[in-house]
């Protein structure tokens, strides 16, 4: 009797997702059925996927071949540790998001709920297939289906022009990225014509072609991950989508691109060259800095988060770059450290960024507002969302004891131990890179304080916020799930690393687990406790203990008396909500310090203004540096070529006449 292999389980899960989606078409308008039945089912499937992935880690790879696909290239599937860890990410994150979505989608929200349900679950299934695919065709099909389904999700509310534009930009860049990925695959087969990944592994590429393949992959996957300069779609698409979809895209979909980079860089293309790592490192640094700076100056809460996603992807790319460099120099232990940082940050980011996006979703539902300038003081009206968001904020700011800090800590550690690279230039570059990473981490804190402080704290900037309501039970459940993931990832790093270590073992041949396990589950010491160690639990315990102790002591020896009174107005008689910082005001120092980084249009009121107002518009440099020129060039070319179709029949006849004569004179067998 055949036993159910994990890979079959995942395949069944993908089909189950598809089935759930199609079931949505059965009753496209029945919101209650779809929200209360189908989405929870999808969440259940997601949970299973996560569990399968988690349990599979450490097993030996499994493969399968389906009947569908091209005649000479049927779908090859493969489940190995790299796939498993990302499947785990997909499963657990999507479980929380689906539960949330069960409460989020309601009547009259853009498209028919049945359609949404279909697109959403096709999106999930295709992401799973991307992870499982083991040949170029299957991969491309899954990859593009993912792009397509997410595109339709993004354009759910296609009444608005900017959302349509965002969708167009998104799909266009996704498609161009896919083209570049396909090219990279083609290079990796090096003319053997065998497009299964196994065939690519078998090839021995010359350094030149290997580099070409790698760079093409970097561009292609970078376009999906949002690396500068192919990031422009991201801040447009994420805000446009419904919040669960934004969460899914930012938390999970971007990671599929990271998966692709790892798959190509460490599995398919063969031995890496050291400078690949430097390229990835440089791109990552630029991306991270760019992302965090722009996220600090946004006035739309979802755009802020989108840019912060760019920043996190940048950090991940930095980690990948370090890993590649170490790997190329054969320093596998350090490579393992860096790669662990990468994987950990993927997991952490999936947790806290989804959490934050879902929180913005609740805020959006409660207030119909996305602009930070019109929010504020919501912690009084929606305490659940606020406090759960706080967890996400702290993690996203990379502060202990939550998940974000662990990966940042690992990343900095791998920087710290990088001297010893046999390349003097690298040794000079690395500290600077570390400095930039540190700066980025600190700036992320700034952005997050702005995010949380302006949305949830202070006085309400609009009267309408008075009747904002807290999230419903389903939404709460989803938020709690993701928040608890964030906390767990934060306080149990040793345990988690023990699991994901299988990946570094598979790709690099070594890992941290042995050394980590020596020091017990509560302590994280990748090299040795003398060199570096971190015990989040003790950490947490100490703080909590001193908080409680302090509180107790104060109550015990003094008193707990307290009375309310109006806030002190510093002698100014009016202290309305308008007196608080606006979103723009809060980020004014950043704009001022990093002025050259932004393309700003500002309007200052003059003394004579009848209606004085202040406005600032921040634009992306890359539009004007890269995309506008390309568009112009294409336009010019087509204008030139269009002269072929002049409308005069005599000229047309002349064309065919000349073609004929030319061929008669030139073409010879």
């Amino acid at each position, binding site marked *: 009797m055949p036993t159910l292999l994990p890979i079959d389980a995942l395949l069944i899960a993908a089909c189950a997702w598809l089935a759930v989606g199609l079931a949505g078409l059965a009753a496209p308008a029945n919101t209650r059925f779809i929200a209360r039945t189908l989405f929870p089912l999808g969440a259940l499937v997601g949970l299973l996927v996560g569990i399968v992935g988690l349990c599979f880690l450490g097993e030996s790879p499994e493969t399968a071949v389906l009947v569908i696909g091209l005649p000479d290239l049927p779908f090859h599937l493969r489940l190995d540790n790299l796939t498993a860890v990302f499947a785990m990410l997909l499963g657990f994150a999507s479980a929380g998001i689906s539960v949330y979505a069960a409460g989020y989608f309601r009547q009259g929200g853009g498209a028919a709920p049945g359609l949404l349900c279909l697109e959403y679950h096709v999106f999930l299934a295709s992401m799973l297939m991307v992870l499982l695919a083991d040949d170029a065709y299957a991969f491309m099909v899954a990859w593009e289906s993912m792009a397509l389904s997410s595109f339709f999700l993004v354009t759910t509310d296609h009444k608005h022009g900017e959302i349509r534009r965002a969708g167009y930009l998104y799909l266009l860049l996704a498609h161009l990225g896919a083209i570049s990925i396909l090219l990279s695959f083609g290079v990796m087969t090096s003319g053997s014509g065998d497009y299964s990944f196994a065939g690519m592994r078998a090839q021995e590429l010359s350094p030149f072609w290997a580099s070409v393949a790698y760079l093409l992959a970097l561009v292609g996957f970078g376009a999906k991950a949002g690396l500068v300069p192919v990031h422009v779609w991201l801040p447009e698409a994420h805000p446009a989508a419904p919040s669960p979809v934004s969460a899914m895209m930012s938390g999970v979909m971007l990671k599929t691109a990271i998966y692709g980079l790892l798959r190509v860089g460490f599995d398919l293309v063969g031995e890496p060259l050291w400078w690949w790592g430097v390229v990835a490192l440089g791109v990552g640094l630029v991306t991270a800095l760019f992302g965090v700076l722009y996220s600090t100056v946004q006035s739309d809460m979802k755009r802020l988060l989108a840019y912060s996603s760019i920043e996190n992807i940048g950090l991940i790319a930095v980690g990948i770059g370090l890993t590649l460099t170490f790997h190329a120099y054969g320093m596998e232990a350090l490579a393992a450290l860096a790669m662990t940082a990468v994987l950990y940050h993927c997991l952490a980011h999936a947790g806290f960024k989804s959490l934050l996006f879902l929180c913005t979703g609740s805020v959006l539902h409660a207030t119909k507002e996305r602009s930070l300038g019109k929010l504020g003081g919501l912690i009084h009206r929606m305490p659940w969302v606020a406090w759960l968001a706080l967890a996400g904020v702290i993690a996203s700011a990379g502060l202990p004891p939550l998940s974000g800090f662990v990966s940042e800590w690992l990343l900095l550690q791998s920087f710290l131990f990088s001297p010893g690279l046999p390349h003097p230039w690298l040794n000079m570059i690395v500290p600077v890179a570390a400095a930039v990473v540190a700066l980025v981490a600190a700036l992320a804190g700034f952005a997050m304080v702005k995010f949380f402080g302006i949305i949830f704290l202070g006085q309400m900037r609009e009267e309408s916020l008075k009747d904002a309501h807290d999230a419903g039970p389903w939404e709460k459940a989803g938020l709690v799930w993701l928040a608890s993931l964030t906390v767990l990832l934060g306080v149990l790093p040793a345990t988690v690393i023990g699991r994901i270590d299988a990946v570094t073992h598979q790709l690099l041949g070594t890992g941290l687990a042995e050394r980590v396990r020596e020091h017990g589950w509560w302590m994280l010491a990748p090299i040795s406790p003398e060199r570096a160690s971190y015990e989040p639990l003790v950490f947490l315990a100490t703080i909590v203990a001193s908080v409680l102790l302090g509180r107790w002591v104060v109550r015990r020896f003094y008193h707990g008396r307290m009375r309310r009174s109006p806030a002190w107005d510093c002698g100014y008689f009016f202290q309305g909500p308008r007196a608080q910082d606006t979103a723009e005001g809060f980020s004014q120092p950043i704009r001022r310090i990093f002025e050259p980084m932004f393309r700003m249009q500002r309007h200052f009121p003059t003394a004579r203004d009848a209606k004085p107002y202040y406005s600032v518009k921040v634009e992306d440099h890359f539009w004007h540096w890269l995309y506008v020129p390309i568009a112009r060039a294409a336009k010019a070319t087509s*204008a030139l070529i*269009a002269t*072929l179709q*002049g409308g005069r029949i005599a000229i047309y006849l*002349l064309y065919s006449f000349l073609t004929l*004569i030319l061929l008669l004179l030139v073409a010879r067998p």
Partner: protein
Amino acid sequence: MNAAIPLTAQLINLFAAVILLLAFAMLAQRRVLPLINLFALQGLTLAASTIVAAVSTGQHHLYWSAGLTLLLKAALLPWILHRLVRRLHVKWEVESLINVPTTMLVGIGLVIIAFNVALPISQLSDTITRGTLGIALAVVMLAFLMMITRTKAIPQVVGFLAMENGLFLAATSATYGMPMVVELGIALDVLVGAIILGVFFFQIRDQFDSLDIRHMERLKDN
């Protein structure tokens, strides 16, 4: 030494030369009706050469095709065209995009090209009328040139039909005719095409109240 070549072959070559000459004449012709007449004459010569070929080779279906040619190219089509010109009150003047001398020069260049292209084939040919293939090609190209340079619908059509003549010349005199069924089909197509063209002229005239095809340059992308 002409004696080596049989008379029939000489005749065929002669007719071919005449057809080429007529093609040039059509290229030079400035008026509509003479143009049609020239076309008819060309058809006549074509028929004649076909008959000669038939006689010399004794292939019977060539008689049929000669008859067809005579009927269609020399009689029916010119008649239709004449009627059209009368019914549509076409202006007699035919403007040309390029002035006639230039056209002639280009035409001579084309003839040279055509001969050179056809040369290797005619060398291979074992038929007595090897040269005619080059002439046929030249006629086709001259007709092509005429279609390009003329700005009115009718001359363009005449050019189109003259091109068919060239093809027919190639078919008959160079290869002693295609299989009968094919020739019938071709003839049918030409006939139907001419009729459809007739229908067209009226439609065009109704829409643009002139047959000047320079009115028809609206559909364009530049």
